[in-house]
């Protein structure tokens, strides 16, 4: 029965963890903007979230978060090549970082809303 309580929050919780992983990835890209030979990577978020929440993949439910992130990695498209073969495009990385930040906050608020709703439902009504 407790499953039914946490199932409602499961989707947003998975989204939140994956957003945090993507945040780390983008931070690594920004940190290595000046490193020669560094290939910038991004995560296919939709694919990773789909795999994490689809009921069909119960076999994959043992996949650790790390493995799921690795599966969804892809190289970022780069607008211009540079002489030291560094493919980090600072403008795109910063835009993606800002985008990811807002979506992380959105997930957080939805999760908060779910928690609040459940707490309200659990409170005993004032009128007997």
């Amino acid at each position, binding site marked *: 029965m407790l499953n039914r309580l946490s199932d409602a929050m499961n989707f947003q919780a998975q989204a*939140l*963890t994956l957003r*945090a*992983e993507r*945040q*780390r*990835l*983008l*931070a*690594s890209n*920004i*940190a*290595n*903007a*000046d*490193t*020669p030979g*560094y290939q910038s*990577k991004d*995560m296919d978020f939709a694919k990773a979230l789909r795999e994490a929440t689809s009921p069909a993949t119960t076999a994959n439910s043992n996949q650790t*978060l*790390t493995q799921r*992130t*690795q599966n969804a*990695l892809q190289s970022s498209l780069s607008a211009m090549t540079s002489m030291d073969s560094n493919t980090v495009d*600072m403008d795109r990385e*910063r835009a993606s*970082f800002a985008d990811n*930040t807002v979506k*992380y*906050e959105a997930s*957080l608020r939805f*999760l*908060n809303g779910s*928690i*609040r709703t459940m707490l309200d439902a659990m409170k005993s009504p004032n009128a007997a």
Partner: protein
Amino acid sequence: MSMFNIFHISGSAVSAQSQRLNAVASNMANADTVAGPDGQAYKARQVVFQSVLAQNGMDQTDVGVQVVGVQENQTPGRRVHDPSHQLADADGYVTYSNVNSVEEMVNMISASRSYQNNLEVMGTAKSLLLKTLQMGQG
């Protein structure tokens, strides 16, 4: 895991960029020095960056930066014919350093932009984590 590692990643980037700024400052300070009696003028220095993969093997999303060494620019310094200079060599030439001030200024601007970007990443991660800690309250 999760976002706490961002402090480690961005921290390493900030530290590497400040070493780069140190190198720029040294170069600018020594831009007008001349060769001493041993004939060796100041050579411009550059730091060499390299990615550092996180210690836990297969995790490729945790990539910091480190400075692996300092490279000296081997271009010969500028030679000026000035027999009256007290450090002129036997032919009357004085050898100055090989620092290119314009290049150093560009380097400085690029390093400080990277520094600011990484600071911003750290600040954003910190505020997101603080909000996460308050989940479910109030």
